[in-house]
């Protein structure tokens, strides 16, 4: 899908957090990196209308996030930085089923798709567990599963590996690599970007570098430390 930012600024009160950013995202694997507070999460939230531009426009396909936010949110899946806010029902399996029920997937197919998605992420055993009693990493995987099971056209990941152990981090890397959809990944885990098509480096609300990971990651490391 084509996501286009045209001269987008985001201001919170007196602070300018994103400053006249123009960029067109069409590649399948896009990474966004940058220092703490550089504006990554804000950038991500622009892509599904959770934050609206103070100036400029964000187009997702042909829709403007300022007008068609609801429709856009169905097409752009979003995995939040904090998984707590993303698991909305009391049991893990109910939570995954929730989105499917809303989109009118036939009742009979739902349990199968839920099981399949959980197995894909290696967390089939969590199906019947209460959501609040999961460990941090378990929550992160469940939140991810709940978004992927919806099969959105584009998936935005805001730091998807923060709470994961080695094995699950590798698994997630494989899952992202295998996704048929477009993926936008914001992360401090630079190794996650191997094989990506394009990496943006944010610095104080501007795109400071834009290129393939092969050059962008070293550029970031050199300029950042």
């Amino acid at each position, binding site marked *: 899908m084509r996501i286009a930012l045209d001269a987008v600024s985001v201001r919170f009160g007196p602070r300018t957090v994103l400053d006249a950013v123009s960029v067109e995202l069409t590649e399948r694997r896009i990474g966004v990196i940058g220092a703490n507070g550089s504006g990554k999460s804000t950038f991500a939230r622009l892509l599904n209308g*959770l934050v609206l531009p103070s100036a400029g426009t964000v187009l997702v396909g042909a829709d403007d996030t300022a007008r*068609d936010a609801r429709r856009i949110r169905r097409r752009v899946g979003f995995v*939040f930085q904090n998984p707590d806010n993303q698991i909305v*029902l009391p049991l893990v399996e109910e939570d995954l089923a929730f989105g499917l029920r*809303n*989109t*009118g997937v036939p009742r009979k197919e739902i349990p199968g798709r839920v099981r399949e998605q959980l197995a894909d992420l290696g967390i089939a055993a969590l199906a019947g567990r209460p959501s609040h009693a999961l460990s941090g990493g378990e929550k992160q995987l469940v939140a991810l599963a709940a*978004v992927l099971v*919806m099969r959105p056209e584009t998936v935005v990941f805001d730091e998807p590996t923060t709470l994961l152990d080695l094995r699950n981090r590798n698994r997630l890397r494989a899952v992202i690599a295998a996704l048929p959809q477009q993926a936008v990944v914001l992360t401090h885990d630079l190794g996650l970007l191997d094989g990506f098509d394009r990496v943006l480096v944010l610095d104080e609300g501007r795109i400071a570098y834009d290129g393939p990971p092969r050059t962008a990651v070293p550029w970031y490391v050199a300029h950042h430390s």
Partner: protein
Amino acid sequence: MSLYVPGTSPLHRVPAGWKLAVLLLCGVAVFLTRSVTLLGPAAGLALVLLLTVRAPREQLARQLRGPLWILAAVVAVAALTESGHAALVVGLRLVILLLTALSVTLTTRTSELQGVLEVMLRPLDRAGLVNAPAVALAVSLALRFIPEVFQQFQEIREAQAARGLRGSPLALVVPLVIRVLRSAEDIAAAIDARCYPPARSRHPDRDDRLSGKAPG
């Protein structure tokens, strides 16, 4: 977290709708009589009913302790200011209501009651008075977030205790409320991202701007 006690007693096997209907009748009936010869055996029956449920003793104690104290206070006031008979009538009525309602609560799954609720809401939903799916979602959301909010509460208290503060309600509740307001934005976004409300809902897609906080 429900009060339901798993079991196979006769009361467990009665459909939830029936239990509620009988309970309602019972609630009306006890106020139609002041006869101790009727109320007395009825209270005994209610007690037997509760015992057939075979609930754990602590569970029963927790549910009954508070109400029984209040009951005792009420009976005492009635006995002192009115008559022994009046006190007995009040006491028996409340005992009957308390015990039968508890028997139903202990033997009925939350999900069954939710089912009854849905049936009762259906006509209201059709009349456009209530949005039944929204009520159902609200119940589920509350169940999901009660433990989470409680945990946040404890962590905030914990963090404050570690920093030398004890028992300042203001310092405890302000951060909790702000957290709740903030997370509501994300939770709502997560729900919308999962295509709520469902397409065939009576409520057409309105583009209700999520956050009053969003810029623009």
